């Protein structure tokens, strides 16, 4: 019953007037910056850090956390409305969400995202409250070998993301992997493919590639067909999901929540994979996989739930171990330190008000998000009915400023322009950018963990099979690969037979 007492303590803390207000401010601000393409939670939290010095620690963290998951949520809105994924997690949301928007179902897609996120957030918060310490121990079981196998699994899964030619899916993944290697090699400290430009020594930011390839590429592509095609195909129909839609998304939301909660715990990039994994899973179990990439509502529900669940559970290693699982968590730790709190295992026992107050506030924040965003859907949908020739220069402006704010560097704006050019070329050649982006994220992590695992095992490659978690994931990857390749091979053979006959 200790949990109940703790939750009560958290509830008391989170429901105080000022903490409620800061929670609200946080999610509002988060949603706003999430909606603006390019401007991410990292930049915003970094800029707002000084403001939080004056607040009590609990309020400061409640607000910062609100910004984080609010931004995750807002990012999906932009991904759905204008095909601009500002976070790695919203790349897959853009795949089907944007197609739904083009079919006039933007409202439905947004509502699905909101409902899925809220459900996932609720479940993940409960997990956080009850199982945080044991789950944190699970995170520690993941060493380099396990992470490498997880990345392999992610890579195989990314093939499923593509809905066109398998060959091009492979090609784009490899291209993404190579682009991801740009920058300083973690294992040797050597810089690679940087053309001796110090600005590229830390690699190319994900947002830059995503904004260029998706954002600019989409704008150029839309302008190309301006006279023959309107950007939004149909007038907007049905803002809210119907009872039938809700039935369709129930299972994907549950599966996404489970997957996201699990992956979010892993500090080495697990949360990033959550939405990709959920999309792959949905496409695999779906009875109509051909609808994916063309506006399948499951393709929004699953990844969005996974994304939000992962965002919540990624607090577990931070709060229980003092280990940041992503740059935002690193900033939160910085904020705690500046408030005089040493993050680490002792936070739970020494700062129960902070720990439980934060957890309960996350659930309240999710509730705020739902209440806030459902009525906003109508407004968003109206926004994209603004004539496109007014909309796209504004999108461009936000992309440019957002990309600049990542490192406060104009160089990144030029890079975005180059990726915009490439994005258009890819479109013309039917090369899908989503698998490339996943390769881009996974490439450096995969190499890093592979080489580290081999270094620690002194060159013994059997570690990947002798460690149970790693072996399990490799087996799943193999099964997945076979199920992806088998239909293609079978089709080839059938084609051959037909030609003979």
């Amino acid at each position: 019953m200790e949990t109940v007492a703790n939750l009560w303590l958290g509830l008391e803390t989170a429901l105080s007037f000022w903490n409620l207000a800061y929670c609200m401010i946080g999610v509002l601000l988060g949603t706003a910056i999430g909606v603006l393409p390019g401007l991410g939670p990292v930049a915003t939290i970094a800029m707002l850090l000084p403001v939080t010095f004056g607040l009590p620690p609990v309020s400061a963290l409640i607000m910062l956390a609100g910004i984080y998951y609010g931004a995750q949520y807002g990012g999906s809105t932009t991904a759905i409305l204008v095909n601009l994924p500002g976070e790695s997690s919203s790349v897959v949301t853009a795949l089907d969400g944007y197609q739904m928007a083009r079919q006039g179902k933007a409202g439905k897609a947004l509502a699905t995202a909101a409902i899925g996120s809220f459900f996932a957030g609720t479940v993940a918060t409960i997990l956080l409250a009850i199982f945080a310490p044991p789950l944190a121990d699970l995170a520690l079981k993941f060493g380099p070998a396990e992470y490498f196998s997880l990345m392999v699994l992610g890579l195989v899964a990314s093939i499923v993301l593509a809905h066109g030619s398998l060959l091009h899916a492979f090609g784009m993944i490899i291209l993404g992997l190579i682009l991801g290697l740009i920058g300083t090699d973690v294992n040797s400290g050597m810089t690679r493919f940087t053309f001796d430009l110090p600005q590229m020594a830390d690699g190319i930011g994900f947002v830059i590639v995503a904004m260029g390839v998706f954002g600019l590429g989409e704008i150029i592509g839309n302008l190309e067909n301006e006279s023959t095609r309107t950007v939004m195909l149909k007038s907007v129909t049905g803002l809210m999901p119907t009872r039938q839609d809700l039935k369709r998304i129930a299972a994907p939301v549950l599966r996404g929540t489970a997957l996201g909660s699990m992956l979010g715990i892993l500090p080495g990039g697990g949360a990033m994979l959550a939405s990709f994994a959920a999309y792959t899973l949905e496409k695999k179990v779906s009875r109509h996989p051909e609808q994916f990439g063309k506006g399948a509502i499951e393709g929004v529900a699953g990844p969005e739930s996974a994304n939000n669940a992962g965002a919540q559970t990624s607090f577990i290693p931070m709060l229980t171990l003092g280990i940041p699982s992503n740059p935002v968590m690193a900033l939160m730790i910085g904020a705690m330190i500046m408030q005089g709190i040493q993050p680490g295992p002792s936070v739970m026992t020494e700062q129960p008000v902070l720990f439980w107050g934060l957890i309960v506030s996350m659930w309240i924040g999710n509730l705020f998000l739902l209440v806030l965003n459902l009525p906003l859907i109508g407004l968003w949908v109206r926004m994209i009915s603004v004539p496109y020739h007014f909309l796209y220069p504004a999108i461009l402006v936000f992309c440019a400023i957002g990309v600049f704010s990542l490192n406060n560097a104009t160089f990144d704006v030029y890079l975005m322009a180059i990726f915009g050019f490439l994005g258009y070329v890819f479109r013309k050649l039917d090369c899908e950018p989503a698998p490339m982006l996943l390769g881009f994220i996974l490439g450096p992590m995969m190499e890093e963990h592979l080489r580290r695992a081999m270094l620690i095992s002194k060159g013994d490659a059997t570690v990947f099979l002798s460690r149970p978690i790693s072996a399990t994931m490799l087996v799943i990857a193999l099964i997945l690969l076979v199920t992806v390749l088998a239909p293609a091979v079978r089709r080839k053979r059938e084609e051959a037979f037909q030609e003979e006959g």
Partner: protein
Amino acid sequence: MKALKLLSAVVLSAAVYAPSYAAGYPEKPVTVIVPFPAGGASDTTARVTTQKMQESLGQPIVVENKPGANGSLGAGQVAQAKPDGYTLMVASIGVYAINPALYKSLPYDPTKNFDLLTVAVRTPNVLVANPSFPANNVQELVAYLKKNPEKVTFASSGAGSSDHLTAALFWQKTGTTGVHVPYKGGAPAITDLIGGHADVSFQNLGAVSNHIKAGKLKLLAITSDKRNQSFPDAPTLKEAGVEGVEVYSWQAIAAPKGLPADVKGKLEQSLTAALNSPDVKTKFNDIGFEVVANTSGQFSEFLNQEISRWKTVVETGKITADQ
């Protein structure tokens, strides 16, 4: 096009309101460049210090993160900035002392391009191990390393980081070898250390003190000259029989070369006052930092020592970071 003309007229007329110069520094916000991402040690140092300095300078101080290339991107920018006292830098031992030892070409020269103001804070490194690691003290570790050459994994926060070079120095002074396993920053290295995937590591005291207290990491020794009051049982490396591995990670403040004397004086005064104020001191102590606040002369002498020391370590250990 009429609208455009009108607009450009408005814009241009607004531009005429450029600020004029006057004697009383500072009369506009001061920018502090941190060549690392927000949330790290340099960033924390900058924010805690400048928050206090604002009170005495009477102008807001803006912390601007300019990460990239081990800090040399931001440092290069500061080196070229106008020495008017409106651009300062807070950076680490890596930027000031290790990069020059490690890289053939840098966009800055720490001894020539900066007016060194003060070393703000320092923190000792600690030698920590996973609790299940067989050695329980430094002597046992050295014996174990000698018996198992090239076997024990040393996690570090990156190739060419201060903890990597500390490990290299340790090997050189004890005549041992180990496997250097670099990570992307300190946090993942500590995670793998706690998880038992790596064996030992030199880490900043502040970053691991809670893990030591919680029993997740085993503290073997501390690299400072005296024992630390938070961990009085941990011997210094010198006490444990390893000479010459007295290492601190430090954060220091500098400005572009050529500050006007009055501006420099005002800055030094404000810095010393801020760093020595009790609440700032407590804040730093809480996270394992010790306030140094030395003079610019002491800083420049110290810097020369540090650069030559790490050069030797890099050359002896044949450590390379840009091939």
